[in-house]
């Protein structure tokens, strides 16, 4: 455990993190930084790729919001070797998604530095922008106010994988005195970076272990409740139909999903572009058929495709125009799928994807 505590950062947590990232560029330790940052045109910070430290005044990775899963942007950035060292500031679930994409030959983590954080969850975009309007320093206020922390999404409030794996550096707030924080190096690369930035190793944040344990227990309990309720809901066809009753087949959830990686979803291809007589025949068989058709088919098929890879980031629920808690269904079902295949997405980049383990455990390349 290599903790670099900052007991009294004079400029506050957000500015400390911002200047740390600026120095990474300034000291040429990296060529670019992908991080959440506010900008004049959006009331919600967006993932932004910086190369000039001076333009980083809006950087705020600890802001309790993630309008889109940065995994997809990180994957685009590392799709093929660019020869540049890029710092990727990602939430734990986004790292897990990125690792799944690596396995699918979509990108590589060769020259990437991954910085993550104790993820206390994110709010839906609308709720975040309302709270941000009420006053400055939304991030500091969020970090110190349990009441604000209560406004995070259902998915985040039932997530017990809030600590990052496979990251080089973690921005630690759990267990720090109010207003304080620490940087934790998880890899030698992270250690070298922090030390070259002049941070001094120290002992662990005072109540870090207890706080982490407390949060983990709380989240696990609520997760179990949610999953049991959802599983019950899904256990009958009526329950399932009611759950997706208002689905419009807009496929937003697919677009927002970081691990749903097809270039074009099969449901958009002619495989599901049914000729009129087929639709009429389907209607005659049952007397009536809801349009657009194949809604259940879509959700079940998507589950069969990425059930093993769902990292529980909750973006599908956030983008659903009909407010369907798609993430609840996907996380509940994929927990059982992953148990069935004894597979955890994002745990280890060398762990092969279950469906593809065909010939004595190795995937043909």
């Amino acid at each position, binding site marked *: 455990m290599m903790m670099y505590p900052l007991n009294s950062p004079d400029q506050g947590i957000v500015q400390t993190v911002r200047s740390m990232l600026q120095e990474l560029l300034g000291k040429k330790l990296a060529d670019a930084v992908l991080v959440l940052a506010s900008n004049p045109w959006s009331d919600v910070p967006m993932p932004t790729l910086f190369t000039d430290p001076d333009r980083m005044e809006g950087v705020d990775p600890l802001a309790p919001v993630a309008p889109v899963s940065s995994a997809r942007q990180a994957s685009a950035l590392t799709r093929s070797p660019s020869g540049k060292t890029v710092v990727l500031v990602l939430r734990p679930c986004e790292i897990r998604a990125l690792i799944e994409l690596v396995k699918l030959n979509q990108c590589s983590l060769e020259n990437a530095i991954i910085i993550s954080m104790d993820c206390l969850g994110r709010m839906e975009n609308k709720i975040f922008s309302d709270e941000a309007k009420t006053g400055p320093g939304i991030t500091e206020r969020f970090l110190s106010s349990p009441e604000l922390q209560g406004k995070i999404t259902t998915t985040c409030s039932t997530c017990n994988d809030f600590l990052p794996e496979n990251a080089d550096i973690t921005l630690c707030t759990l267990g720090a005195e109010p207003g304080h924080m620490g940087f934790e190096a998880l890899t030698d690369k992270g250690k070298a970076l922090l030390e070259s930035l002049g941070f001094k190793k120290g002992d662990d944040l005072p109540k870090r272990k207890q706080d982490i344990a407390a949060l983990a227990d709380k989240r696990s309990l609520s997760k179990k409740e949610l999953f049991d309720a959802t*599983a019950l809901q*899904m*256990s*009958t*066809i*009526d*329950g*399932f*139909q009611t759950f*997706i*009753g208002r*689905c419009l087949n807009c496929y937003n959830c697919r677009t927002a999903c970081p691990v749903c990686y097809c270039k074009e979803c*099969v449901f958009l291809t002619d495989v599901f572009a049914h000729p009129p007589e087929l639709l009429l025949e389907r209607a005659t068989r*049952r*007397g*009536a*058929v*809801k349009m657009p*058709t194949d*809604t*259940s*088919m879509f959700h*079940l*098929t998507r*589950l*069969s*495709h990425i*059930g*093993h890879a769902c990292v529980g980031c909750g973006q599908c629920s956030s983008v659903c125009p009909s407010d369907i808690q798609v993430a609840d269904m996907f996380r*509940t*079902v994929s927990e*059982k*799928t992953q148990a*069935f*295949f004894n597979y955890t997405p994002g745990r280890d980049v060398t762990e092969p994807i*279950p*469906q593809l*383990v*065909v*010939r004595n455990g190795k995937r043909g390349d």
Partner: protein
Amino acid sequence: MSEYKPKIVALVCNWCTYTAADLAGTSRLSYPAEIRMIRLMCTGMIDQKYILKAFLDGADGVFIGGCHPGDCHYIDGNIKAEKRIGGTRNLLSQFGFEPDRLALQWIGASEGPEFQHNMTAFVERITALGPSQVADRMIL
């Protein structure tokens, strides 16, 4: 409703189980007519969508027949199918479809009687399970 007759889709591989079905035919080994069969080149060709579609269209049971391990005409298509179908059964069982409604059996090309036995047994098991919960609902 008249005596319940289950609707069953059988996805079988051409080299083994379909040949066994033909052999059951030439040997006049009858079995319930509720079985409706689709011929594929290999069980390894069965996409999970086909199974999901069959159940959502109201099939009460899906039977998949392939070659015995080691006998697959395409070396290990049946082994891939076994893993994939295991995953599909796990998925469907979470949506209220009893696991027994999706069966995977190895039936060799020369096993006419075994084919008949498997068909009859499967229809009995599905009849016992009763109609699928989809039945005549207007599924979305």
